[in-house]
């Protein structure tokens, strides 16, 4: 069988020679002189035949790859994806593997020749920008769009079902479906949002909701602070009452009582703590604040600030009424009508609707243009204005009519979907620029996860946005805008998987440091770090190894870094090589661990997938599982993991994954530095897929920096998926190559990746859908 494969390869190569000889009729018999231009025969075939095909042949296509398929020049066109993969593996140094001859000069020659041929071929091919499926706004985009459209704070994350994700992101058009449940939610949300924006509906009778320690409804954050999650049912003013049992010493000073909502201070008040002299047996007092609260679920925290008094108390005295006055409950009473109108009213009612139909039409047209993110037609306006008539027919006011029209807009497909139109929707050869307003929306949902603002929308409408200088200027303006922090919240938190901080559950016994504050601190560090690299246009190498990070006291303590005090985050210079870059950040290390222990497999896979862009193939059907649970107890983890190397099926991937995971073993399952794992010392030696070895996390980072081109490509691909809302197709390869090449030439400044994606054909163009073939293929599969 083996020889048959060889024969076939030879047969192919004969045709290759024939083809080659046609073009060089002059001296077919002579060997070409050494200086002759390389050909497929001289630059490609020898390496494939002599080195690669030993493992990659038609009998044992290791890794599902058969090199003999690539022995003819025609394969450059017919096996394009395969060739792209070969070049990637060779460039990354992953192939040929260790233990196999590695003729670097031949490899370089092959890469250069093949790349040249592919480029030549590409120059003659019409570019394929791909096609993005109509894209439903996901939860974050919905919430941000409502904020920017109406100035209403709506928590879609709380009210809508989770959006499914694909390719690691939750903004993929094909995956974002609509279910009846979601439609109900959209209907209900539209009703509430429109009502809140116009604020013309009467408020219900006030009610009081109590959160008290006796009912286990508050969380004691520390001796001076309590926390409760409360759903505010209506926008309005509320009386917030604080329950304060106990009393302090006769000479105790008053303290400052602060109230925060979702991490923001909303009100403060000085509070007396010494005995009042009125009640002796069961001292108790209440304090009250009147505050304006937005509808939705909010986390409220109340605390005494700079409360030195409790520092002198033992743990039992803190909640003893005789020795301390402490926060024990919080009551929300309301809603009451606010003194001022909400800002959304001015945003919507741009003239006085009672002045007549002209103004009503103006209001509706303005709202629709922004909600649909494009110019609206007279017919559309007329249809919407009918709702005002309908409300009036039911005896409601003109304002309530506008509210109803707004409600209708918010469930229209024109609002809920980003739809791009094709002149020829079913002709895949019909490549065309997307319209100006479509481009404006692509840009705003990429950089802001929200709708275009007025400036961007107007440039889209006038068509000026497509001018390269104008487009670049808009990208700059938008990156400088605070809204671009959406890239940290939505791109980075999914790329680095730190969104999973919400679902991971480190064991509180084994990791007593773990609590909601630490979790939020971890999230903040990675978020601030990403924002800094983005805003400061730092080199992308900073992601792999940076001499700075962002810490507050709690996180600095976890890292063992001194001199950082207080809850605020600040930029901190790193003086040792224990930390640096995202792979040493607690958020990343926590989401890539189990609840009780680290996992070299998960972390190794993480590095391959999120950093190097070469996710391992899925495990065999029935993985022989490893005993990671016994880590640090019976045999060292490394000894156990050697099992992975013993079985060749496992070895092909685990020989790449495990050594990367070991490089991070100095960090425990919540990212704390350690030198011992149970009773065994941590051994952090390992190897990168390109063969570079390391013996500590610091050295591993340095080795990763040497693979910067590969990392940059990985990030560009992920950014591209996120920017387009679709998976990467082979036809995007050239665009990505070009972007990575230009990034390299400039030293990989991060913002350039964003500018380049925006300038690219896949971002600015689309084509019709390939219909027939796709269906035929599906039928054939069945």
């Amino acid at each position, binding site marked *: 069988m083996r020889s048959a494969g060889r024969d076939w390869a030879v047969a192919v190569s004969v045709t290759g020679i024939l083809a080659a000889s046609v073009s060089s009729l002059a001296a077919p018999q002579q060997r070409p002189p050494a200086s002759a231009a390389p050909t497929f025969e001289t630059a490609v075939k020898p390496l494939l035949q002599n080195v690669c095909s030993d493992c990659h042949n038609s009998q044992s296509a290791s890794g599902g790859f058969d090199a003999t398929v690539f022995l003819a020049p025609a394969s450059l066109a017919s096996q394009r994806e395969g060739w792209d993969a070969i070049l990637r593996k060779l460039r990354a140094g992953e192939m040929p593997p260790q233990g196999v001859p590695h003729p670097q000069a031949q490899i370089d020659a092959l890469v250069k020749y093949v790349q040249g041929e592919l480029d030549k071929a590409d120059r003659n091919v019409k570019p394929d920008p791909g096609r993005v499926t109509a894209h439903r706004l996901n939860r974050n985009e919905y919430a941000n769009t409502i904020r920017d459209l109406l100035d209403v704070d709506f928590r879609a994350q709380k009210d809508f079902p989770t959006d499914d994700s694909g390719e690691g992101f939750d903004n993929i058009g094909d995956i974002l479906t609509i279910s009846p449940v979601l439609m109900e939610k959209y209907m*209900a949300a539209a009703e509430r949002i429109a009502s809140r924006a116009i604020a013309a509906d009467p408020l219900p009778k006030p009610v009081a909701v109590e959160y008290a320690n006796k009912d286990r409804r508050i969380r004691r954050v520390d001796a001076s602070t309590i926390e409760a*999650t409360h759903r505010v049912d209506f926008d309005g003013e509320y009386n917030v009452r604080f329950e304060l049992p106990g009393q302090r010493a006769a000479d105790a000073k008053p303290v400052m009582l602060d109230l925060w909502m979702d991490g923001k201070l909303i009100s403060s008040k000085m509070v007396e703590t010494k005995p009042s002299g009125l009640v002796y047996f069961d001292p108790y007092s209440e304090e009250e604040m009147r505050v304006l609260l937005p509808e939705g679920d909010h986390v409220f925290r109340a605390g005494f600030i700079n409360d030195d008094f409790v520092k002198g108390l033992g743990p039992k005295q803190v909640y003893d009424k005789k020795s301390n006055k402490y926060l024990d409950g919080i009551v929300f009473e309301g809603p009451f009508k606010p003194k001022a109108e909400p800002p959304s009213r001015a945003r919507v009612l741009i003239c006085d609707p009672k002045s007549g139909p002209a103004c009503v039409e103006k209001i509706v047209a303005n709202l629709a243009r922004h909600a649909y993110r494009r110019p609206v037609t007279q017919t559309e306006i007329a249809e919407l204005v009918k709702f005002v008539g309908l409300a009036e027919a039911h005896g409601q006011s003109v304002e309530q009519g506008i509210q109803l029209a707004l409600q209708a807009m918010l469930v229209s497909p024109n609002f809920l979907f980003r739809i791009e139109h094709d002149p020829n929707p079913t002709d895949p050869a019909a490549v065309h620029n997307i319209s100006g307003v479509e481009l404006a929306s692509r840009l705003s949902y990429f950089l802001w996860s929200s709708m275009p603002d007025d400036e961007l929308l107007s440039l889209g409408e006038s068509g000026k946005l497509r001018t390269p200088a104008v487009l670049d200027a808009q990208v700059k303006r938008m990156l400088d805008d605070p809204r671009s922090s959406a890239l940290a919240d939505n791109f980075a938190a999914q790329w680095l998987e730190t969104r999973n901080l919400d679902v991971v559950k480190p064991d509180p016994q084994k990791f007593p440091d773990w609590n909601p504050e630490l979790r939020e601190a971890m999230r903040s560090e990675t978020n601030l770090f990403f924002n800094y690299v983005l805003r400061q246009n730092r080199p992308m190498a900073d992601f792999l190894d940076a001499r700075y990070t962002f810490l507050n006291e709690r996180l600095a303590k976890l890292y063992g870094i001194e001199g950082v005090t207080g809850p605020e985050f600040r930029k901190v210079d790193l003086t040792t090589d224990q930390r640096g870059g995202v792979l040493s950040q607690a958020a990343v290390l926590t989401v890539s661990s189990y609840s009780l222990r680290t996992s070299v497999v998960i972390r190794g896979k993480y590095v391959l997938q999120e950093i190097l862009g070469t996710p391992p193939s899925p495990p065999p059907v029935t*993985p022989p599982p490893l005993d990671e649970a016994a880590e640090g107890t019976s045999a060292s983890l490394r000894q156990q993991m050697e099992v992975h190397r013993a079985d060749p099926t496992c070895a092909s991937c685990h020989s790449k994954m495990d050594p990367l995971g070991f490089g991070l073993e100095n960090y425990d399952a919540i990212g704390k530095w350690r030198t011992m794992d149970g009773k065994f010392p941590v051994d952090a030696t390992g190897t990168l897929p390109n063969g570079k070895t390391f013996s500590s996390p610091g050295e591993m980072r340095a080795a990763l920096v040497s693979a910067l081109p590969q990392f940059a490509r990985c990030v560009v691909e992920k950014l591209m998926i996120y920017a387009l809302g679709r998976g990467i197709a082979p036809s995007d390869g050239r665009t990505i190559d070009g972007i990575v090449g230009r990034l390299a030439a400039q030293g990989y400044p991060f913002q350039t990746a964003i500018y380049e994606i925006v300038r690219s054909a896949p971002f600015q163009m689309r084509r019709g859908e390939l219909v027939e073939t796709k269906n035929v293929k599906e039928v054939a599969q069945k």
Partner: protein
Amino acid sequence: MTITRKTLHRRSFLRGMGAAIGLPLLDAMVPALAIGQARAVKAPLRMAFAYVPNGIIMNEWNPAYEGKLGELPRVLKPMEPHRDDILMLGNLTHNTGRALLDGAGDHGRCSGSYLTGIQVKKTTVDIKAGVSCDQIVAKHLADQTRFPSLEVGMEDARQAGDCDSGYSCAYTNNLSWKSETQPLPPILDPRSLFERLFGNGVILSPEARAREADYRRSILDFVGEDTKRLEASLGPTDRRKLDEYLTSIREVERQIERTETANAQIDPHMEKPYGIPADFAEHFKLMTDMITIAFQADLTRVVTFLITREGTSRPYREIGIADGHHPCTHHQGKPELIEKVTQINTYHTTQLSAWVDKLKSTPEGGARLLDNMMLVYGAGLSDGNRHLHEDLPTLMIGNAAGAIKTGRRVVYRKETPMCNLHLAMMDRMGVHMEHFGDATGELSFAELT
């Protein structure tokens, strides 16, 4: 996500539930429900699936005997009080959960195929399963109840990264599929489920309610027209997206109609829950309490309950297990890990048992609510350590108004398709299908009695 989760105001909630249990809601609603057919209404039949992931310790699940149920193995011990109401089904297999030619990803695959009977497409982008059996029934009964079906769950979806070896998270996040590309996400938050079933608590006057209904209808008409205008210039994939949108719109329309005919706001006699309880049992109780009320009040007849997701690594600190569920199930025969999985399995059946208690103590037309139900409790894997897809642990609870003889264990021929059960259940629910998934025929209920 919230920083902490508010615990429920438990005492007042329990008080509320006490009242609800005592009140046969369906009976109370009859006058409003059906003018002319009042009292003659026969209690409807309901179908529910409750799913647990990562397989079960089968040694502790399967009794050594067939026929009449006597003493039950450890995992099923909590169900002993209900053994007269259980039919244990042995040897049911989901061949489509197996790799066939698709390689790794048993968790993603078995979850995707559990109710669809389809070998789902291995993809992270363009998902494709099939219409699930619960949705076939839901469509058939759509004009009978306010909600054709309810999808309920307890575990928040993973939000980043992939779920299982090249399978989209959509396969593990959802059990019910309305079309081959449209999964139905489960409701996880008790408040959200409460508001869906019983409204937001604001009681409207009849005039205001009529006005709201008129508004909603006009809005739905309007967006329907909008969609038609859009569709003209779209390619097939985009059009499919808008079709999903239109289907959902129509369903909301039907709900509005149903609400008007029923003309009643249901008072669940329970306090609106706030937040997701951190405690598993408390969350389970809330969700199943509401499912029970929804059945009782005939708000729906079809429920899927994804207790936790396939592949979940949730620890069970409630019973002192700090390791994740999934890593434990790859126990390699180690007794201490098998013990932990057994405890998790048993903890689940303990919650189930409490739910069945409630279904039995809820009266309906002189019988018990459970008597008009088919509640299937099961998993998409039997042995989670080895990812086995045969002899799936399956309980049929309730006797479908006397159609199923319970109190027994029946072991079928090896490799009997799980889809045979689906086919039989759909038949009981009034949907007569020739084929479903890889079914070879109905699991005959006649044979079972």
